[in-house]
């Protein structure tokens, strides 16, 4: 009976168009944000921040970007890692080549560069779709892999494409400890998630979804496929690109192109599919699932083996990890093709009716 919207009447369209029209949801989100900003830094140790929470935040941002393109606009991409790389390396170049450029500006410029590259590699989407487009985005992936490995200018002549940054300051705030890093990433993610939500509930989001659902009909009612698709590529690449800058600057602080390989691209696609295509919330679920799963398996499998008196070697664990990971993906696709977000909304529906199931 806790979760009821009875009696919450909307008297204006503005009230009806809020992000969280149900009062309980608004309170829940306020509580969650308070806990994330205040509670977690007080409660959680460094390992948890470094190994789980920071990667989770940054990959959520990247997954948001991928979801805009794949989930909302229906254009499949296997090259998200490439745009992370472009974001990270572009920001790096702005950072070292322009003296005194504020860090935030470098990050945003990195994102904008990724957006421009994204538009370029999105051009094939005007001619082809589905799997063919996936191949076009893979082209972006392999091209950037090569560029950052072999063209010395982009890495300031560092050998093997490895670069590093240090002494990061944002508006006088020294980002050094894991807690600083966590808070910075969290703040960034909250802002960007809000922007993503706003876009998907406005005209531009409807254009994307219309193209996804029925592109011919979309054109007939006056949506230009060129603008809709390329804007999706641009916005998505911007999100993914800034995630790349955070991943490089904040999380790794020294990195090489392998950090943004094709495996990363697949990982991001898994996140949005498992989390839920076309759902902002789903991007977070997917990122959490994919970040936590390998760590959990790593902890769990040896213990599980010990239960039966079998010692599983480190190599054995990593093989078993692959198997369980692959099997879980297949399981999810079969049991809930709409992802965790759908499970969540079904659970909410049930809760609404609880304790009277009919």
């Amino acid at each position, binding site marked *: 009976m806790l979760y009821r919207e009875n009696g919450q009447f909307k008297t204006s*369209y*503005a009230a009806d*168009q809020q992000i969280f029209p149900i009062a309980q949801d608004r309170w829940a989100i306020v509580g969650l944000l308070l806990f994330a900003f205040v509670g977690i830094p007080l409660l959680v140790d460094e390992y948890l921040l470094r190994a789980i929470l920071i990667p989770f935040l940054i990959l959520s941002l990247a997954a948001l970007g991928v979801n805009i393109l794949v989930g909302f606009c229906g254009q499949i991409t296997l090259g998200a890692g490439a745009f992370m790389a472009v974001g990270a390396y572009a920001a790096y170049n702005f950072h070292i080549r322009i003296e005194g450029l504020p860090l935030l500006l470098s990050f945003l410029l990195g994102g904008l560069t990724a957006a421009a590259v994204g538009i370029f590699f999105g051009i094939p989407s005007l001619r082809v779709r589905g799997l063919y487009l996936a191949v076009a985005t893979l082209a972006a992936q392999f091209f950037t892999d090569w560029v950052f490995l072999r063209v010395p200018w982009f890495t300031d002549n560092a050998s093997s494409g490895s670069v590093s940054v240090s002494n990061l300051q944002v508006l006088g705030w020294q980002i050094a400890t894991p807690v600083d890093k966590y808070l910075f990433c969290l703040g960034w993610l909250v802002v960007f998630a809000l*922007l993503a939500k*706003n*876009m998907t509930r*406005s*005209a*531009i989001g*409807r*254009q994307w*979804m*219309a193209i*996804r*659902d*029925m592109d*011919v*009909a*979309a*054109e*007939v*009612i*006056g*949506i*230009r496929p060129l603008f809709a698709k390329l*804007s999706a590529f641009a*916005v998505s690449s911007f999100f993914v690109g800034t995630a790349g800058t955070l991943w490089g600057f904040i999380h790794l602080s020294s990195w090489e192109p392998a950090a943004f390989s094709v495996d990363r691209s697949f990982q991001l696609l898994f996140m949005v599919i498992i989390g839920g295509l*076309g759902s902002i919330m789903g991007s977070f679920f997917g990122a959490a699932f994919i970040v936590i799963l390998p760590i959990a398996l790593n902890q769990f499998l040896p213990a599980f083996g010990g239960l039966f008196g079998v010692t599983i070697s480190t190599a054995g664990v990593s093989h078993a990890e692959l198997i369980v990971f692959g099997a879980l993906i297949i399981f999810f696709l079969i049991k809930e093709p709409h992802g965790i977000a759908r499970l969540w909304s079904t659970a909410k529906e049930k809760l609404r009716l609880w304790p009277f199931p009919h």
Partner: protein
Amino acid sequence: MSRQIGEVILDLKNVSLSFGGVKALTDISFDVREHEIRAIIGPNGAGKSSMLNVINGVYRPQQGDIILRGRRFSRMNPYEAAKAGISRTFQNIALFKGMNVIDNLMTGRNLKIRSNLIQQAFWWGPARREELAHRAKVEEVIDFLEIQHIRKTPVGRLPYGLQKRVDLGRALAMEPSILLLDEPMAGMNVEEKQDMCRFILDVNDQFGTTIVLIEHDMAVVMDISDRVVVLDYGKKIGDGAPDEVRANPEVITAYLGASH
């Protein structure tokens, strides 16, 4: 009736369309007058849907001209057509399945949106105001079509008859001057057909919208349209008021087979 049939606003001249050697339309000419209800009829495969697709630019005819309010086009494109105030519904309902009814209708307002991507991302003054204004407009269409109860239902979950209505709603949300309806009553039961007829007549009457419609149900066509074009095998075989067409021997042959 209060409406006055006006001048010719859409004129098709000698339109021919073929798909790799197969002729879909051969040398077809007819015109549409402002505020009228113009029907296109014909047996299956006569080229009716192709005709609508030529008018709003989904198909590109090899020959012929389309004259819209005095402007001559050798071919339309769907975006230009939409901007010129042509909207349409689809035979096999082409709604956006992943969106709810309100959002589907809101897409119809797309051409009228002025705020840009950045403003929308920040839910900024103009973007927000616009969103509310268009929502109000969409609610008018919802009221008009009597679909208030399903406004937040994803269209994929709606029964066929209601989907057809939402399809019409999306076209109406564009506030078109010319509305193309591709078999709006196909597959409906009698009640649904009556409702749909009422909506079509109301649209025409209240908003003065010019309507071009394809329909199989002869009784309905003859009842509501002002003039009728008859196509058979991609050729025009009759054109005129319902009574004239009904008396046309060629039309009778096309519909009933061999001569009687």
